[in-house]
């Protein structure tokens, strides 16, 4: 009798533990390991410092965008405007810095402020005017993209040399782009200990219950988009450091890629569950898939198609394995 109760207690504890770890994260890490393995096979130089630096350098922007998207999705929203926020922030920072190394700090502030301001617009429209996040950010994506074109009508402009060169250096034996990814992880770990992020989870899980529990739902929703916008601003600096010049069309794929990264990372699109570490892993998976296709000599014509198919397969795998847990 006692034994039975103990068993049940133990098994329900085990169930709780599995829920916390989340089945999806097992899939996420499995996929990451697989894609790294495949990449190493098709690209023998994969683990050299040079290769790691340039690979990481390409996906730093997507990593920050994925953290931004993760926060919005956990809060029960969706942000289709992340890509053009990245573009707008990058061109604003580009103009502010004007190629001068001395103004890099100001450039960072300009990118953060631009991103946060865009996020504030999204936040006010969804939380105060109460429009659907999907519709709001679909529209603001065009607005921000339009403003970007006004600021910088065609690709060009010079990024401060210290930024582009510094991005290729190594610090304490670790390439700077890898440090950037670690910073993204750190930002998430710090955020996840704040009251604000607790409330984001609560609002995403059940906004009405959160309201009844005295969570300031409207403020949390606004701040969610503002935080995401600021992170998109950081992604913009990554873009500039990587490409070395400005491009008003840079963000075209970022929004959808960040959503794919979030789903790959095991974050439920219904909100309230998951964490941005998974989304970072998801972003890395997406970037490496492109890398693998390149080294497999897949013709450029088919690369887009192939990467789409791989993403669909990965998404299906992670969603199908979580669904069981939801239905119970």
């Amino acid at each position: 009798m006692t034994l039975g109760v103990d068993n049940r207690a133990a098994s329900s504890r085990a169930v709780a533990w599995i829920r916390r770890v989340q089945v999806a994260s097992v899939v996420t890490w499995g996929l990451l390991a697989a894609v790294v393995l495949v990449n190493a096979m098709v690209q023998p130089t994969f683990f050299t410092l040079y290769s790691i630096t340039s690979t990481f350098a390409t996906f730093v922007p997507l990593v920050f965008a994925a953290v931004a998207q993760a926060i919005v999705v956990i809060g029960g929203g969706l942000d289709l405007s992340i890509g053009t926020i990245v573009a707008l922030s990058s061109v604003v920072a580009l103009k502010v810095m004007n190629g001068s190394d001395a103004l890099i700090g100001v450039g960072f502030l300009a990118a953060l402020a631009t991103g946060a301001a865009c996020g504030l617009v999204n936040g006010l429209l969804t939380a105060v005017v109460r429009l659907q996040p999907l519709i709001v950010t679909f529209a603001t994506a065009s607005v921000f993209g339009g403003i970007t074109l006004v600021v910088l009508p065609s690709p060009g402009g010079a990024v401060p040399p210290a930024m582009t060169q510094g991005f290729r250096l190594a610090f304490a034996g670790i390439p700077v782009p890898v440090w950037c990814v670690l910073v993204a992880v750190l930002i998430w770990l710090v955020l996840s200990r704040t009251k604000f992020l607790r409330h984001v989870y609560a609002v995403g899980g059940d906004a009405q219950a959160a309201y009844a529990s005295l969570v300031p739902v409207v403020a949390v929703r606004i701040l969610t988009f503002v935080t995401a916008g600021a992170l998109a601003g950081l992604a913009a600096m990554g873009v500039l450091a990587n490409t070395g010049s400005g491009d008003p069309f840079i963000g075209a794929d970022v929004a959808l890629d960040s959503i794919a990264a979030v789903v790959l990372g095991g974050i439920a699109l219904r909100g309230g569950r998951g964490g941005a570490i998974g989304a970072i892993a998801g972003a890395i998976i997406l970037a490496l898939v492109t890398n693998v296709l390149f080294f497999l000599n897949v013709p450029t014509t088919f690369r887009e198609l192939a990467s789409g198919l791989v993403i669909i397969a990965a998404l299906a795998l992670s969603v199908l394995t979580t669904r069981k847990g939801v239905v119970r």
Partner: protein
Amino acid sequence: MPLLSMTGVHKRYGGVRALDGASLSLEAGEVHGLLGPNGSGKSTLNKVLAGTVSPDAATIELDGQPITIGKPRDAAARGIAAVYQQLSLVDSLTVGRNLTLGVEPTRAGFVDNRASAAEIDEVLERLRPGLGPGVTATTEVSSLTPGQQQLVEIAKAVLRRPRILILDEATASLHRDQVQLLFEIIRELTAAGTCVVFVSHRLEEVMTICDRATILRTGRTVATLTIAETSESELVRTMVGDVAQAERRAELARTDDMVLRVRGLTAPGVSDVDLDVHRGEILGLGGLQGQGQSELLLALFGATPIRAGEIELNGRRVANTSVVKATGNGFALVPGDRGSQGLFMQRAIQENLSIVSLRRRLLAALGISMRRERGVAADAVQRLSIKIGGLDDPVTSLSGGNAQKVVIAKWLLNEPAVVLLDDPTKGVDISAKAEIYAIVRELADSGVAVILNSSDDVELAELCDRVIVLYEGRIRTQLVGDEITSDRLVAAALLIGEGDQGTVDETVAAAPDGSDR
């Protein structure tokens, strides 16, 4: 001086007065029951106190000082916490995170987990006998049973150390042992000076735990009684008051022609229900609101899955496994919420009237003859004397009563054998009410079997040939003909016997012959 007093509380919802000058006076350290029949305003009064409903007018004094409560935050700041049936727990979060949600202890914006961990563990340990062994602070709420969730909800309110704790039907989903545990906790709280406001449909619980009780009737406070000095029958008398005897519909020569026969029906919210409805009979569903009446109608209509039992229509067994099948079998449901379930509010009256019965009038199974549709719709409008501008006007242009008549009319065009009405006169003004009554009577006279769920006891008394009273999803009592009076309906709903000391079992046994049992 009382801890808190509320006087002159008024609240209207459209044309309905939910509270009409209600008052409530609470003392520190007491358990105060709030009692009243359906629609008496106890929930609204609670919500005003908790800040989730803002009153049209109210004077609230705490410790003799006037205060205003406009939103939940105001109430919380004054030390008022509420536990409702609709839980305020976030399913996807752990028990621990839910317990501190909104009041997380922080240092410089960061959540201080250690500060709350001890408190959380202590309260979970206190609830251990009710929660069972597996539940810890890291258990996700979605994996708990409704009873466990309710206990966590209570723990969450208790953790906020309220001066006034409102428990609104907090025992509904609890087992007997869990209720005992809650009562122990309530006694500890009141011993420490907390005031607990207690609402429960189980009168037995009110008699056990409450020191005093305030009784509401039609939005007014009629009395505050000391429970120890009051008998159950006195309580019922105070709740019902001196209601003018409803004018009953002329006794129908009861036919033995059985239209609907239900045996052992079990579905979500309904257990083992037997029904017999004869041709031309109006069967009422009574009891306190939310005891399975709407759920029973939904199950009969095939909208929720039937787990066990059988339904016979005119002696033929039917399987209402979906709404479409039920409609085809001659069932019609006039739902409780017109706006979301009964009508396409933005569409024309014409379309709303045609939609259910369109199949019957199709030309070659495809074409719609507009002239015919308009003719049929115009007939229905005239027959039920629905006041409309034109058939092409949207339903939003109609008053509540006329909109409800459109719902009834659209089903009548399908010529149903059984009509299920779910609180059809809720939020409807008096004159439209009378017209709807006339329609229901006419329906019955034309040979349709009618089942009417109503939260209004007077309505049941006025319309029904028979009323079955439901309690927690089961039939508890049946009242026939002249037995259907307001006070007997209330007594039956609260499981009080014919005499003073009647128990549940005696009440059932005393049900007259010809009952379903």
